[in-house]
């Protein structure tokens, strides 16, 4: 009996270890590579032998990488704010107000997220140009919402629907308008959902490549993923692996930091005490 228990524990431990290695190793290898230069780049090492920061310096000096990061931050933050605002207000209607065609509307929203990005690319291009937003950041903000809004609306609608009906009615009796109900009563209860969907939207916007590549022309207006991909080496024949890895490490850190910060806010059981449970 005892041996089987230990065996099970060891087995579980190795399974977990395998999973961790599988998901973390590529990033770890990027960090290791980012400290190497010259021909050392093409040798396989599992730990950094020297700490050489020249790649980090060149990532910022060879191109306006700080501008790219700044662009990415602006776009991602704007996408999160807009998606959450539209998501919360839309989910209030979809989750709490009864109207004809609600189910169909929800399905349509879900269907939008099923289109492959390439399929909507040319149409989106025309749209952006027509709006005069080609080669500008607002163009990216609007187009990114095609994939952030569907899941934001869906997740928030599910949460919104589960909030007790009496809570809404109690606030109606207290004289609250729909806007007050959303902001003062429901939003505080939706924090976990808002943080989760907000983070996902942020990551999606932060890492988006295809739209950013197509709708932006100049180096200065590019966002991070495209900027990293278009980093050029000293000659045409050299791919600057060092700088690319350094840039990747730099842009991953904010995302990791965000997740760690907001992790505390993803707490469940916030509705405890509202109604008899």
């Amino acid at each position, binding site marked *: 009996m005892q041996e089987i228990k230990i065996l099970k524990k060891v087995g579980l431990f190795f399974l977990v270890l395998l999973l961790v290695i599988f998901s973390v190793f590529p990033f770890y290898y990027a960090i290791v590579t980012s400290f190497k230069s010259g021909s050392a780049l093409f040798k396989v090492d599992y730990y950094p032998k020297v700490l050489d920061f020249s790649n980090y310096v060149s990532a910022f000096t060879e191109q306006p990488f700080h501008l790219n990061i700044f662009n990415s931050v602006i776009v991602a933050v704007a996408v999160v704010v807009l998606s959450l605002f539209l998501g919360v207000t839309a989910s209030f209607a979809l989750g709490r107000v009864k109207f004809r065609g609600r189910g169909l509307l929800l399905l349509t929203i879900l269907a939008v997220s099923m289109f492959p990005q390439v399929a909507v690319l040319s149409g989106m291009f025309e749209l952006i140009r027509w709006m005069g937003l080609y080669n500008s950041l607002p163009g990216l903000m609007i187009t990114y919402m095609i994939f952030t809004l569907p899941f934001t609306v869906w997740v928030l609608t599910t949460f919104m629907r589960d909030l007790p009906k009496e*809570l809404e009615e*109690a606030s109606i*009796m207290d*004289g609250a308008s729909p806007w007050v109900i959303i902001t003062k*009563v429901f939003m505080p209860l939706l924090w976990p959902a808002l943080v989760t969907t907000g983070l996902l939207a942020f990551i999606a916007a932060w890492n988006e490549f295809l739209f950013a590549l197509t709708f932006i022309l100049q180096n200065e207006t590019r966002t991070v993923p495209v900027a990293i991909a278009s980093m050029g080496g000293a000659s045409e024949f050299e791919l600057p692996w060092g700088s690319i890895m350094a840039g990747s490490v730099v842009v991953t850190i904010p995302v990791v930091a965000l997740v760690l910060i907001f992790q505390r806010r993803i707490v469940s059981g916030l509705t*405890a005490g509202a*109604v008899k449970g």
Partner: protein
Amino acid sequence: MSEIRMRGVYKQFGKERIIENVNLDIEDGEFVVFVGPSGCGKSTLLRLVAGLEDITKGDLHIGGKRVNNLPPPERGVAMVFQSYALYPHMTVYENMAFGLRLAKTDTQTIDERVRKAGDILQLDQLLTRLPKELSGGQRQRVAIGRAIVREPGVFLFDEPLSNLDAALRVQTRIEIAKLHSDLGASMIYVTHDQVEAMTLANKIVLLNAGEAVIKDGSVAQVGSPLELYHQPCNKFVAGFIGSPKMNFIDGELVSSDGSKSTIKLPDGSQVEASVDASAAQPGMKVTLGIRPEHFDQQGASSTAKGKVAYAEHLGEASLFYLELAGSNELLTLRKEGDVLANRGDMIEISIPRDYCHLFNDSDRAFPRTVTYEQEMLTTV
């Protein structure tokens, strides 16, 4: 002044007819209880008054003003929900102050009212707590406090006690009764528990369910608790009010002279009842009703013997379920104190004429010739 007048009020959800033709007057300061079996629309009727549902047809006046199209906060009503519905992210104080803040009341008035409500409900020590740190009874008091601070003309309670345990329920029931006498506001209270209805109400509104709603309208009978107990207008009311429920024995009307009637029972025996059934022809199928607790009162016109099928000893009284010759339904008999009788024993029961109810073939009650005031005098 916040008297409520309902005139021909109807409510439909799609094709479903929930509330039919309700005409009801609730005077200022009255405690009215809506009671009825589940699915009778009692909560819906309350929500019509609150403004949480729209009235399909008819007029609702509160304080002399037609309020059909007025939003809930402007009707001068406050509601206490069954599930408390407290704002979980706000403290007790903020929960109570929320409505007043939205109404732009000045801070000092808010503070005064919240503290006063806290005193009334013994929540003064708990004002800074969150709902999740409170017990069920305390949460219910906060919900009531949230209604009190708005100083409404009408309080609406939607089954406020059904989530509490038995002991707390009795205690809170008394607190609500006290609150009513202290505040003097009108209260409408929805419950399915007839004990709550009998103990709290000045006026009970008993609602029909099922087909009777379409046939007779939603309201089965309106009256004081004792009126409904002693002079039910039909078999449904007679059966609903009182626990254990009234016994019904099928019979046939033999004669009636305006002050008393004679009824033939299935076993062939004849019973006299102080009921005026002169409106009906002799030979009509009738139902004799008598409450389990009234069998052994004075003035018996006939006796019968029943075999005990089940016995329940409650301590203060005993309930016996009797098999009677010629009847396939068990008869319930309540005897005060400890009466020892077991399954299979024979018990003799008497049927006192002053305590009989009589219903015609469409279940309407014939008028009793003994008023309940007289009846009470004889029992005291």
